[in-house]
């Protein structure tokens, strides 16, 4: 394994990072209205959200990328492979984040909602001041785990032409006829990327836990 090989693989790094962060961000934001719909009192809306979440999660990511890139890209508006991957993975992340949020919301004691109503805080304030900060703490470990999972999921983007880490690894492996060493190196990069996320979430979790604990 030469430094040249390492640099070859490193070229994929920015794409992996950009795709992961972009899709996670999109998912984290879109997950909010989605979970709101999922918990809505309006039955059709709730059902629609549920069906949407199940279908998005039920179909493998590679198919979503094909549908978005080749389906939409051909008939509706041209879209670059990167943007198609971002859209597809963002969609899947939204469905999964909505479920993570749902779990976190369920863990908030109903007394908190009641106290907010009794204090006449509006819905918005109840959500942003009272519920979201507490749900955030509960969702953190799952969300961090999911972020790490998503990072590896971005490898599917290479099928439609985004030259991220896995693509570079695959390319190098084919060109040099070496499998294991190359993939070990690629794996190292993924682990190195995941460690700060894992560490940050553990530290933040510990800190937030200590703050509210006795």
């Amino acid at each position, binding site marked *: 394994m030469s430094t040249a090989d390492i640099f070859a693989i490193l070229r994929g790094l920015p794409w992996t990072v950009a795709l992961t962060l972009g899709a996670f961000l999109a998912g984290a934001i879109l997950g909010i209205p989605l979970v709101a719909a999922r918990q809505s009192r309006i039955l059709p809306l709730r059902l629609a959200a549920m069906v949407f979440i199940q279908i998005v999660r039920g179909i493998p990511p590679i198919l979503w990328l094909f549908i978005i890139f080749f389906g939409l890209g051909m008939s509706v508006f041209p879209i670059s492979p990167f943007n198609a991957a971002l859209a597809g993975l963002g969609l899947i992340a939204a469905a999964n984040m909505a479920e993570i949020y749902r779990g976190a919301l369920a863990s908030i004691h109903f007394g908190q909602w*009641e106290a907010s109503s*009794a*204090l*006449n805080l*509006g819905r918005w*304030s109840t959500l942003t001041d009272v519920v979201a900060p*507490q749900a955030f*703490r509960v969702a953190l470990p799952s969300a961090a785990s999911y972020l790490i999972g998503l990072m590896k999921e971005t490898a599917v983007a290479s099928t439609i032409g985004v030259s991220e880490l896995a693509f570079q690894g695959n390319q190098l492996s084919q060109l040099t006829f070496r499998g294991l060493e190359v993939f070990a190196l690629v794996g190292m990069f993924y682990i190195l990327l995941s460690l700060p996320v894992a560490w940050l979430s553990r530290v933040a979790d510990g800190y937030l836990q200590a*703050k509210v*604990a006795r």
Partner: protein
Amino acid sequence: MDGAVLHMRGGKPTMTEDDALAAKGAPSEKGQARKPLIKLDKLSKHYGNHTVLDGIDLEVMPGEVLAIIGPSGSGKSTLLRCINYLEPPDGGHVTIGDISLNAAAPAGRSELSTLRRSVGMVFQSFNLFPHMTVLRNVSLAQERVLGRSRKNADDRSMQLLSRVGLADKAEQFPGRCSGGQQQRIAIARALALDPDVMLFDEPTSALDPELGLEVLAVMRELAETGMTMIVVTHEMSFAENVSDTVMIMADGKIIEKGPSQDVMRNPQQERTKRFLRAVHDR
């Protein structure tokens, strides 16, 4: 007790002149001409086919302190929660000051908001916001509901915290405060909105005797400033000595109601006698 009614409301005259006048009279002499601050008509509430509140009629005068006692499951908490529409009732009317809500019609946002603004509630389990400091707990609703500036809200909060003896805990998180302290923070938080009425749900039963005493002292003081209060409690001394009126509930109905001393010392109903005996036997 006279004239002090407005003191609690930070100078905001939310009551009609009638009410203010009425508050000057002794709360327990119910004059015909005086208008009650709270009026419930045939209030009822069901869960499935279980009737929890069964046509409750109730009037509370401005400045009156009403104690509600009764066995577990009799609907005391549900009654409090229906008064501020935390739990919308199924039938009847709730009137507080100028706002009147009919349970049959869905309540509008703005009416609900006006109603809740005039009602402060203190929960048995405190329900403080664990992720905010004590000060932010008290200031939050002032900023969001009354639109006060952060500085004004914090000033008022500090004033209230000092009043309940907790100025030094302002920057602490609620989780690190003792039960008695948490309950007093909850009182300060409810007072911060300058409500016309305060509802208390078993404010001391989770506390040890000394802590309970602290909270009772704060409530007694509050009663003395003329605050209208409805208190669900098992503290017999509070019912007997602080409240003006005592009401006994069982199975979703009011079974007895009257001036505190009368009801506590000389109950008329068999069920009341039985309950009070249990209380005294402990």
